C-alpha cells in the first residue's frame, strides 16, 4: 500500500528506507553533475509549515520541492494564524481546503505531525517534531554513510552529545538499526534518557568506548540553554569531558566519517580541527539533505502520477 505520510523512521520498513537512500543517491549524483530540474512533482504544491525556526532544513525541503517541479509556499507560523489563536488542526484543514498536496511540518511538540496527518488529506512530512523524530536528517546522515562507505549493514555508528533532547539521535537509531548497523551512544548522564538500550542502542560510559572501532562518529548539537537548566556546569567543562577531539578520534577506525547535524558549536561538540579536517563530511551532508528530501517527496507523490 502506498504510504500517505512520512512521520518518522520508527514507522518505515527497512525496504522503504533502502528505496529512499537509493533514490537519494541517484539524485545526489545528478545534482553533483549539475542537473537542476526534474518533473516528478510537476503541478503539485508543497507547503512548508514551520512552527519552529529553522534555516537549513526549511531551505533544503524548499529546494528539493522546487527541483522536482513543485510550487512551494512557506508559512512562518511564528508570524501567522497561530498568533491569532488558530489551532494546528484548523490550520491543516484550511490548507487542505486549498488543495495543497504535501505539508512539510516542523513543530516543537512530539507527535504534532501525526495529529496533522490524521486531520488532512494531503501528504505530511515530518521535518522535526519536538524530541521525537527528524527523519529527513537521519536519512541524509545514512545517505552520506552509504555514499562514502558503500553500505549501512555492519557499520558501527557512534552518537555523542545531548541524546536526551535529540530527535536526530532517535531517528538515526531507528533507521540504522533497521538497516543492520550498530549504534553506540554516549552523553552526560543528565542528558541520557532511559530505555535506549531496549531500542537497540549500546549505551557507553566513556567517549572512548563509544567511539572504539566506529566507522562513523556523529556529534550532536548542544543547546546553550541546557547549561542554564542545570544539565552540566559549563560549556568548557562539557567540551573537556564530553566533546569529540583528536584524542577521542584515535579510538575510531582510521578514516572514520565525522558527521554533525549542524549548526555546530566550534570547539564544544567537535574541535575546529576535526570540523575542518579531511574526515569531516559535515558540509557534504547538506547536499545529501536536498537529495534525500527529493526522494521523500517523490515517494509520497509518485503513484498519483500513473
Amino acid at each position, binding site marked *: 500500500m502506498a504510504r500517505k505520510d512520512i512521520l518518522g523512521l520508527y514507522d518505515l520498513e527497512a525496504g522503504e528506507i533502502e528505496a529512499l537512500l537509493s533514490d537519494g543517491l541517484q539524485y545526489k549524483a545528478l545534482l553533483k553533475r549539475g542537473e537542476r530540474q526534474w518533473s516528478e512533482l510537476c503541478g503539485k504544491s508543497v507547503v512548508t509549515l514551520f512552527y519552529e525556526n529553522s534555516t537549513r532544513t526549511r531551505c533544503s525541503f524548499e529546494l528539493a520541492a522546487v527541483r522536482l517541479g513543485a510550487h512551494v509556499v512557506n508559512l512562518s507560523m511564528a508570524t501567522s494564524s497561530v498568533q491569532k489563536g488558530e489551532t494546528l488542526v484548523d490550520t491543516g484543514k484550511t490548507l487542505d481546503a486549498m488543495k495543497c498536496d504535501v505539508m512539510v511540518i516542523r513543530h516543537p511538540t*512530539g*507527535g*504534532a505531525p501525526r495529529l496533522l496527518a490524521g486531520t488532512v488529506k494531503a501528504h505530511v512530512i515530518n521535518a522535526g517534531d519536538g524530541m521525537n523524530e527528524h527523519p529527513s536528517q537521519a536519512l541524509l546522515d545514512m545517505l552520506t554513510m552509504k555514499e562514502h562507505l558503500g553500505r549501512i549493514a555492519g557499520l558501527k555508528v557512534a552518537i555523542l552529545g545531548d541524546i536526551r533532547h535529540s*530527535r536526530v539521535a532517535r531517528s538515526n537509531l531507528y533507521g540504522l538499526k533497521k538497516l543492520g548497523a550498530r549504534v553506540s551512544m554516549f552523553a552526560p548522564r543528565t542528558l541520557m534518557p*532511559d530505555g535506549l538500550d531496549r531500542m537497540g542502542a549500546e549505551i557507553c560510559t566513556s567517549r572512548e568506548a563509544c567511539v572504539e572501532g566506529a566507522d562513523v562518529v556523529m556529534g550532536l548539537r548542544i543547546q546553550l540553554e541546557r547549561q542554564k537548566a542545570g544539565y552540566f556546569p559549563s560549556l568548557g567543562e562539557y567540551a573537556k569531558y564530553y566533546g569529540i577531539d583528536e584524542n577521542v578520534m584515535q579510538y575510531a577506525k582510521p578514516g572514520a566519517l565525522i558527521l554533525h547535524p549542524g549548526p555546530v558549536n566550534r570547539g564544544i561538540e567537535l574541535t575546529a580541527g576535526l570540523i575542518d579536517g579531511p574526515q569531516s563530511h559535515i558540509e557534504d551532508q547538506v547536499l545529501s539533505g536536498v537529495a534525500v528530501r527529493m526522494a521523500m517527496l517523490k515517494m509520497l507523490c509518485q503513484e498519483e502520477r500513473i
Partner: protein
Amino acid sequence: MIFRGADVVFRDGVRQCDLRTENGKIAEIAPAGTLEGEGWDLAGRTVFPGLIDMHVHLREPGFEKKETIETGTMSAVKGGFTQICCMPNTKPVVDNKVVVTYIKARAKEVGHCKVHPIGAITEGQRGETLAAIGGMKAAGAVALSEDGKSVRNASLMASAMLYAADFGLKCLCHCEDASLTEGKVVHEGYYSTRTGLKGSIRAAEDILIARELCLAESLGLPVHICHVSTYSGVQLIREAKARGVQVTAETCPHYFTLTDEAIQDFDPDTKVNPPLREERDRLAVEQGLKDGTLDCIASDHAPHHEDDKNVEYDLAAFGISGLETSFALSYTELVKKTGLLTLPALAAKMSANPAKIVGLAGGEIAVGAPADLTVVDLGEKWTVNPAKFVSKGKNTPFKGMEVYGRVKMTVVDGEIKYRED
C-alpha cells in the same frame, strides 16, 4: 418500594435478598421472595451499596463548556454513583462559603445525585494564605484539597492540617513537586524516550507523598493521599500505615488498568496527572488495593471539551472522563480478571471507605441506612464508546475497550435516578 431477588453485596458477603425502601431509607431486608408489594424484580442482578466517588471535577462554576453540575451528576448516576465529592479548582475557586453554597444549591436544583463540595486549602489555590475553611465547612464542604497541585510551602500545609482539624476536615493531598514536573507531560521511562515527550520521574509524586505523611505523623493528624500512581508511593503509604500514621489513600482505574505504553501513539486522551506509569507501578497499585494500603478507588473524573484535547500532546489538557467507566474497569480488572478483590471488598473501595474518609452517611446496605443502591448486571460485556457518554467530556483512553459489569439502575435516597433503557 421493593427491590426483589437481587444478589445483594453486604460488608460480609453476597446474599440473595429482597430490600424494602421507605422515606429514602432502607426499611427492611428479608429473604428473597418474601416481600410483597410494588417494586422491581432484580433476579440475576447484583445490588451494591450506592457507589461514592470522592474525587470528581464538575467544572461548574466557570468551565461549563467542559461539564456542568447537571451533566456531571447525570454521568455519575449512569456510572452507578449516588454520591460524589467535587474538587475546588473551578472559576472562581471554591475557597469561600459563597461558592460552596452555589454548588450545593445548583446540585439540589439540577443534580441527579448527592454532591459534596470540597474546598480549596489556600485562597485561590495560590498557596499563599489559608482559604476560608470555617466558613466553607459551615456551608457544607466535606474536605479540603488543592487538587491539581500541592501546597508548596510545608509550613502553610502544616497550618492547614491543624486548622482544618479544628473543623473536623481532612486534607486530600494531590502530591506533586512542581520543580520536577514543570513542562512534563508523561512518565519518564522507555515510552517518554521513544516518543520524545517530556517525562517526570516518580520522585515528583513520592516527595510530596512523603512530606504529607511526615506532616501527618508529626502533627498526629489524619491525611488522605489522592490518586496514587507509583509503586514507591504505595510503599511509602504502606510503611506509614504500619507505624500508625493516620493515612488513607485512593487510586484511579487508569492506574491499575493502563501503563505508559498507551502514550506511544500520542493520543492526548492518555495525558493525565499523575501520568500513566509502568507495569511495576500498575502491579503495585493492584497489590496496594488488595492489602488495604490503598483504601478506595476514585475516578478523578476530569472532563474536557474536544478543543482542549484535539491539539498537540504538549498543549492538551490533563485528565480522563471517568465516571461512566470507573465501576466496569474496577470490576473487570480487580474482580473478574485477577480475583484480587471480592465483591464486598470492591464495594468497600467504592462506597464504604470513601464514605468513612470524608464522613458521609451511606456506604453500606443496612436497615436505617440511606436507600442508595447501585444495580448492576455483572455478566454483561460492553464496549466503551465515548460518543455514548452523557458527560460532556468524551476524553477517555479506554475507547473501544471491552469491559464487564453494566450499571442498570441507580437509586438515590430511595428514588430511581437512572435506569438503563
